Each structure stands twice: as C-alpha cells, then as structure tokens.
C-alpha cells in the first residue's frame, strides 16, 4: 500500500494555507503514513522558473523532512507520495515521484501495473531512458510518448489507461499544463477534496480533511483532472461523469478512515495476524540458510531487543535451546553495556526491532559490531537502520503497524525464531525427526489456527474483560516457553489497560510473589502441552487456595486443568514450540477489551511512543 496526494491552490501555499505548499504536502503525507512509510517524495512546479522540482528519499517523513526541505518549496501545484515497499528495496531512486525523460511530467502512484515490463521494453526501444526499477516509471514515459505523437495530455492519459493492466491510482502533473492535476483511479482508492481556494486528490480523506470536508469519491475507471476553475471526470466505460451530483460533505475525524473496518488500530492489527504470519512464512527462504550457517559456526549467540521485541528475543533463546540444543543469551538491549567487554570475534548477535530504529538495540548492535561480532537483524521495516548495519537481515512481513502496542509484529517475530530454530534443529539433530516433522506440519497451518483462536475467543474475552476491568493487579505465569508469552501478556495489560501486571516463571510464586494474592486477584496461567503441564497445576492450586481468580490457556482436552481453573480457554494441541503463536492472541485480546471496557483508547497509551529513538 502507498499513499498519494496532489494539491492545487490559488496563487501559492503561503497565501492560501499560511505556509509553503511543500509543508502542506508534508502534513498530508504524515496523515497517510498508515499506508506506508519507508520512502517519501514530492514534486512541485516552481512558480518562477516553471520547472519541475523533485525531492525524494527513503526513510520516514519525520526523519528526512529536514533533508528534503518541504518548507523551502512553495508553489501552486504539487504532488506527494509515501511508500511501503513490498518487493524490492526502498531507495532514493525507487521513491516517487517518477518523471519522464525531459523532467516535464511527474507521477505518484499507488498499486501495480502488471504489464509494465512489456511497456518498458517497448519504450526503451523508442529511446526512453529509465532510472528506477519501479513499474511506476513507465507511466510518465508512456504519456511522454503519446504527447510526442501529438495527442493532448488528457488523450494521452486515456490511451495509457487502456494500455496499462493492473490495479492503480495515480496523480500526475506536467509543466506543460501547470494548472491541472491529472488523476486515474483503477481499483486502488482515490478521492477528490474540493476546497474554496484549493483542490486535492488523495488516496484517503485524512490527507486533506484539515482544509475541506467536501469530497468526491472516484470510482473504478474514473480519470480526469482538477483545476481551480474546473473539475473534469470521465469514466473509461461510462464516459463523462456529472461530478456535481457526487459531491459529499463529511463530518468525521481523520482517524476513522485509516482504521477501515475496525474501531482501533490495535484490534485491526490483532486481526491481521493470520495474514501477517502467512506473508512472513511465504517470503522467507534463502536468508534462513545463510543465518543458520552463521549461527551454527558461532562461538556464542546473543539475542537482544526492547519491550515486546525482547519477549520475542527471550522466546528465541528458549527455542534455540529446546529445538536446536544451542546455547544463547538474550538480554534487554538497553542493558548492552554489561556485555561491552564480553562481545568478541566469532560471536553472533541477533537484534530484534520492529521499526529497525530502536536506539538501544542499535547501540547494542554497534557495540557488538565494534568488537567483531556478526549481526543478524529481525525487523519489519526493510532497510531501516538496524538491518542496514547488520550482516544479514531477515524481515517479518506484517505490514505497517500503527498501534503503539505491538501485536502482529510480535507473532511474526516468533515465527521467524521458530523457523531459525527449526533450521538449526535439522542440522544439529537435537530434536527427533518426528518432532521436527510436527513443527513443519504445524507451521503450514499456523495462520488458520491463529485465526481460529482469535475468532473463537473474542466474544468470550469481551465478556471476561468486564470482570477484569475492575481489577488493579494481575499475575501471568508459565514455565519455560510459557514465560516469554506470559511476559508479553502482562506487558500488553500494563501498557494499554493500565492494570499493574507482573509475569514470572510459575515456580517462583512461593519465593515471594504469592504474598500478594488475595481474594479475586487474577492469575493467568500459560499452560503449554509439554512435560511441565502437571507441575503448573500445582501452581494453580496454590493460587486458588489463596482465593485467586485463576484463568488458564490450556491444551485442548486437558481435563485435570479444566477442573482446577476458574476460567478456561482451550488451545489447540500443538508442540509447545509453535503453540506460542496462537497462545499470545487471547492475551492481546484481553488487554484490548479490558482497555476498551475501562474507557481507554488502546491506540494511544499514555506516556508511550511507537518507536523509541532516544536513549
């Protein structure tokens, strides 16, 4: 997904918006960041020289805004783009806008043009010079070609649409007609905003809602242009469209659109997990061989991350121990200082960061690297800082995660660790063939299994949350692989429902924490289908005896546990290794629904930011 914006205004941005048009473009793009944020760019026609100015770069808007200098450019017409690379690298060259050979036409585009190779070859033969690897770049060149043949811009666009196959939305400006923004909508969304002294065209309403609430939603096959005196919409099949009857006035908040289909990002992202797992599983292949080679030859293995990524790191450590029989040390990345004199050549550090920009993790990476260690990065953002500074990067394909509480990226990180441990297990032969086969089989179904758990327990948890909403404390207990899952469950409850929660290995209860238990104190038990499950029942009993409200995630059909617990959620019978993925989802839902019941906004936890880039 990408976000596009086009703005045309009277005289210039400073007169209409009280700020340079470049600045307005930037603000619009920030509101489209939920659609992607790995590269940014804009094109503006210089009002004095009438030349096309292109500024673009990879990176998040807020990080590169100074370099691109949005506020240094004013004018009356501009287009902008924010990109989310799914195939191919985010890079300065691949960033939008793209131009034709003469730098007269600039295009921003969201979607795919399936037959772009064909068109590209044809255009190259005619002498066009391409700069990027993108499909988008064929658009300006194709238009340029038709213009050369003597067609008008509108006519050229119409011809181009007929030639390009795929799903796309685009905005186009040209120095030949500096008073018009041309557009096309074909499957990918595109909306026109009609203001008093400015018109907009964008992938979504939030991009311009600050300036106008009068909109026209374009339909598939619509194309045309906006200018200050005229709006022209034509449909490739239906002909000219009477746009006046399609103007709508809305009174919504900018946020509603971005969450399409859900009241909160967090719920949306919880529900996107099956797809995130599926995409991650499909995309990983060769890098696994390289990574396992590096790890098998490592003298020592370290794993680091912060927050949720640390919990994935801890799970990673356990998985390497259990499946591959390898020792590993996981640590919270801000504590890297203690290893300063420990890292040395031959070591491998696995750095886990959703954003790839977490400062503590980045510092740990630099420290280890300085001492000669090799670095493996696990990140959700292609080519972000940590992957860039690493020897090998492996990516989760969870898509943009906007909710501050990490959900889908956590399960995707767990999946990556399971895959790594599995690959190493094959080499070391630590686990028997049958178990490895089971893991393999289970991973094939993991997406469906997770989906099933989410939908099965969502109504149950919605009800349970009414009870939990009145609590002030909670414990999350597990043993071995159940520990990182419990820790992540507790973190979720803390960070969005503001209920104090603590997680620790269940065996520790009698060494202190049990003193806190009183009547109705909720205690969650993460009971996996392993040889420890009977031991954990002892922990259930000791909590129950003191009046705790015991809630358990239990392997299906484990009757003994069902008798002992007050509240039971039956989980699929899987090896404990893959089970950790579906097991975390009820905890995410519990935190979400408890927060909602308590009247908090799960997307805006107080005192927290999504990516921590300061120490």
């Amino acid at each position, binding site marked *: 997904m990408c976000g596009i914006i086009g703005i045309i205004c009277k005289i210039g941005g400073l007169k209409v918006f009280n700020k340079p048009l470049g600045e307005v473009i930037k603000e619009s793009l920030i509101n489209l960041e939920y659609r992607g944020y790995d590269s940014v760019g804009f094109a503006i026609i210089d009002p004095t020289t009438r030349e096309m100015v292109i500024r673009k770069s990879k990176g998040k808007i807020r990080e590169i805004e100074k370099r691109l200098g949005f506020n240094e450019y004013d004018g009356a017409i501009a287009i902008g783009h924010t990109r989310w690379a799914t195939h191919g690298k985010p890079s300065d060259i691949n960033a939008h806008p793209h131009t034709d050979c003469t730098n007269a036409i600039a295009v921003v585009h969201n979607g795919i043009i399936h037959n772009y190779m064909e068109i590209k070859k044809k255009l190259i033969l005619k002498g066009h010079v391409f700069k990027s690897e993108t499909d988008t770049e064929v658009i300006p060149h194709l238009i340029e070609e038709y213009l050369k043949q003597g067609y008008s811009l509108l006519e050229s666009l119409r011809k181009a649409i007929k030639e390009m196959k795929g799903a796309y939305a685009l905005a186009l400006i040209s120095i030949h007609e500096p008073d018009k923004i041309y557009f096309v909508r074909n499957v990918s*969304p595109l*909306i026109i905003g009609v203001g008093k002294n400015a018109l907009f065209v964008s992938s*979504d*309403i939030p991009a311009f809602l600050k300036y106008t609430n009068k*909109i026209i*939603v374009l*339909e598939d096959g619509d194309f045309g242009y906006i200018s200050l005196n005229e709006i022209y919409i034509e449909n490739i099949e239906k002909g000219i469209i009477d746009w006046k*009857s*399609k*103007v*709508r*006035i*809305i*009174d*919504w908040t900018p946020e*509603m*659109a971005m969450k*399409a*289909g*859900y*009241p*909160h990002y967090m*719920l949306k992202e919880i*529900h*996107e997990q*099956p*797809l995130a797992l*599926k995409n991650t599983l499909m995309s990983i292949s060769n890098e696994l061989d390289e990574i396992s080679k590096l790890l098998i030859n490592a003298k020592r293995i370290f794993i680091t991350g912060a927050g949720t990524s640390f919990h994935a790191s801890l799970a990673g450590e356990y998985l390497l121990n259990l499946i591959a029989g390898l020792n590993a040390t996981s640590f919270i990345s801000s504590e890297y200082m203690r290893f300063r004199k420990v890292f040395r050549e031959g070591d491998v550090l696995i750095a886990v960061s959703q954003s790839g920009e977490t400062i503590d993790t980045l510092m740990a990476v630099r420290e280890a690297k300085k001492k000669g260690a090799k670095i493996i990065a696990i990140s959700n953002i292609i080519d972000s800082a940590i992957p860039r500074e690493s020897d090998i990067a492996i990516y989760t394909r969870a898509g943009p995660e906007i909710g501050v509480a990490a959900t889908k990226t956590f399960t995707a990180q767990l999946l990556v660790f399971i895959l790594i441990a599995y690959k190493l297990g094959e080499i070391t032969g630590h686990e028997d063939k049958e178990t490895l086969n089971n893991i393999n089989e289970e991973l094939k179904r993991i*997406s*469906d299994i997770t*989906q*099933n758990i989410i*939908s*099965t327990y*969502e*109504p*149950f948890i*919605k*009800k349970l949350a*009414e*009870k939990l909403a*009145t609590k002030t404390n909670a414990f999350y207990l597990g043993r071995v692989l159940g520990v990182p899952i419990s820790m992540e469950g507790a973190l979720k409850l803390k960070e969005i429902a503001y209920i104090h929660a603590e997680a620790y290995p269940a065996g520790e209860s009698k060494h202190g924490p049990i003193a806190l238990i*009183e*009547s*109705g104190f909720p205690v969650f038990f993460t009971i996996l289908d392993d040889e420890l499950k009977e031991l954990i029942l002892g922990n259930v009993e000791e909590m129950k005896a003191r*009046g705790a*409200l015991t809630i358990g995630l239990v392997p299906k059909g484990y009757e003994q546990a069902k008798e002992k617990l007050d509240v039971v959620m039956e989980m699929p019978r899987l090896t404990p290794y893959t089970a950790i993925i579906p097991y975390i989802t009820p905890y995410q839902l519990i935190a*979400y*629904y408890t927060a*909602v019941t308590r009247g908090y906004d799960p997307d805006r936890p107080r005192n927290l930011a999504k990516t921590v880039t300061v120490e």
Partner: protein
Amino acid sequence: MPEITALILAGGAGERIKLITGGKPKTLLKLAGKYIIEYVLDNVRNAGITRAIMVVNDPREYEDIAIKYGKYMQIDLIPQKLPEIEGAILSVKDMIRSDFMLIYGDIIAPSDMYKELLYMYISNNNYGIVLVPEEELETYGIAIISVAGKIQSFIENPSRGTPNAYVIGGAFILPREFIEVLETYGSVIKALDYINKKYRLKPYLWSGWWIDIGYPWDLLRASFYVLKQINKTIISDNAIISPKAVIDGPVIIEDKVEIDHYAVIKGPAYIGKETYIGTHSLVRNYVTLEGGNIIGAYCEIAWSNIQKDASIGRGSYIGFSIIGSEAVVEPGVTTLNILPKHMRPVRAIELSKRGKEYVKLGAIIGHKARVPAGKILKPGEEIG
C-alpha cells in the same frame, strides 16, 4: 450530497419478550426514559442521516416519535405487510431506489458503530456490514471470516463454536439490488451471500457494547451501559424530594417525582416522571423506574427495569428483575437472586463485589401481572 436512506425495521412479534411487552412491539419498551426505538433514531441522526423509513406493525403507535424526530429527519412510517425480516424489507421495496442503510430496530449500541460503517461507504464506496463478537451464535445469523479478514459466507442459525464466525450486527449498507435479490431468494442470509460475492461486503468489526433486545434480561444489560453514561445528578425543578432523602448520584430525577423521607437513591439510576418512592425505601444502582411507578415504603430495588405504571407494594425486595408496565407487586414480595456459582445461565449478571464473585438472576413479572402478597420468587421465575 446524495442522500442515503435508513431503513429501520421496528416491527415484528418479539415472541421471546412478549411477557413484558404484552404484545406491543419491543421497540416501544422504555429504557431510562426513552423508547428503545429512540436510541436507534438518535444513532441514525448522529450518523448524519436525514431520511428514514421505519417499518412498523402499526404506524399509529409511532406517530409521536416520528413527530419528535421529524425535526431532524424525514421519517416515513410504513406498516409491515409480511412476516419476518424479509417481509419487513419487502414491505417497502418500492420506496428504496438507491444504496441504503439497513438497521435492525431492536439493537442498541453507541452511535459510532453506525457512523463508522457509513464512513467506510462514503470514503471508499464500500458496501458494508457490522459484525460483532458474540458467544450465542445459534440465535443469530453469522458471517464467516477468512484469514485475510474478508467475508467468506453467511450462515443462518449456526451451531455454537462455528469457527471464524462473527454475529451480524444489525447495521448494513447495501445496494438497491439487495432488495431484488431478496425477492428472488426469500432469505436475507442468501441475499447477503449473493451481494457479498458480487460486491465484496466490507466487514466492520464492532468491539464496543452491543445489545440485541430479544429477551427481557437484555434490558438489564442495556440499562447498565446507558446509565453508565450519566455523569451527574439532574433533578427536575418540579420534583418533590424530602430534605431527609439521600440522593447519592449520578441520578436523573424527572418531573413530578416524589421521594419521601429517608429514602435512599444510589446512582447511577433513573427515576421517571410522576414516580413515587415511599419512606425508607432503597433504590440501588442500575435501576430504571420508567415513570408513573409507585414504590411503597421500606422497599429495596437493585439493578432492575421497572416499566411504566408498575407498582411495588411496601416491604418488597426486587433485584435483577424486569417488571412489565401496569404490573402490581403486592406487599412483601421477595425475589431471590443469588445462583450457585456453577450455575451460569447466559442471561445472568455476573458481579464481583468486595473481592467476591456472584451470579445474579431475578424474576420477570409480566405486563399487567399481579404478584400476590408475601410471595417468594426464585431466580429466573416468570409471572405472566
């Protein structure tokens, strides 16, 4: 702006709640001083819709409401000619000429649910449907969701535990074509399936509160959410409240209410017009007295919905119960509430107080019913 019409289904028999309604439509039951249908109309209004068609059993019963809301929207009252939801929709088939919002009139939820569904339609041209996570699948129609979050199919009366199922939430935005398809197939579920295959209905998963008024007990859950929104005490100037009475807010007290000496009202609660509360009575939280009620001296009422003109005789205890309009509870009646922990009927209310868990269930006393003096009602008992 092209108008979208709300088609509100407010007719139907309401068999499961008949004891309380006495055969009148359930959308005309009262909850904290408003008719159920008024909650729906408020939501429609808040979503920005200005035209509504209401399908009702008898338009005369809704005239006053239509006039009241006529200030905000154009309302047509149409009598339901054929039975069931299908019949209700087909009763107005000639009046729907373009895309429309279909709304079940017996569902109460915050207006954001409708607003955001409409947003998806306006911003992206998506036809959509509200889905809710509910456990009792078997009493609803459901949608099955795919791994990619799309709707795969619709099922009528599924078995409990059907995987990947979400309950149809009673709000839809559909093309006019839906009505033609409904006429052909004769079933909402089949018609939805057809429309979904053709246009890809976009699900809107609603995670907030959502109550389908089907059983009398649903009124209690609804009053919990509705009363929770009251954040300060509002007392009508025309109410007569003894200086010795204790009003421990938030409570809404309407016109001509009389509260006698030493009565205690603990909010959140709603005391409707012309209600009398006798001396030394205790009205606890989540009680709604819908108006014209007479509560004798020394009564206690906890978490109950008392419809209009019902009276409760002196020395009675009514908890977790629903009393129909014009019912008479004679003096000294007691409802038993506490269920053993292992018994958890779905409609019971689970409470935790002072660290202890309770499962509570009271009685249903029907429209115009009379409970003889001194009677003890067991949890779940129904008096017709």
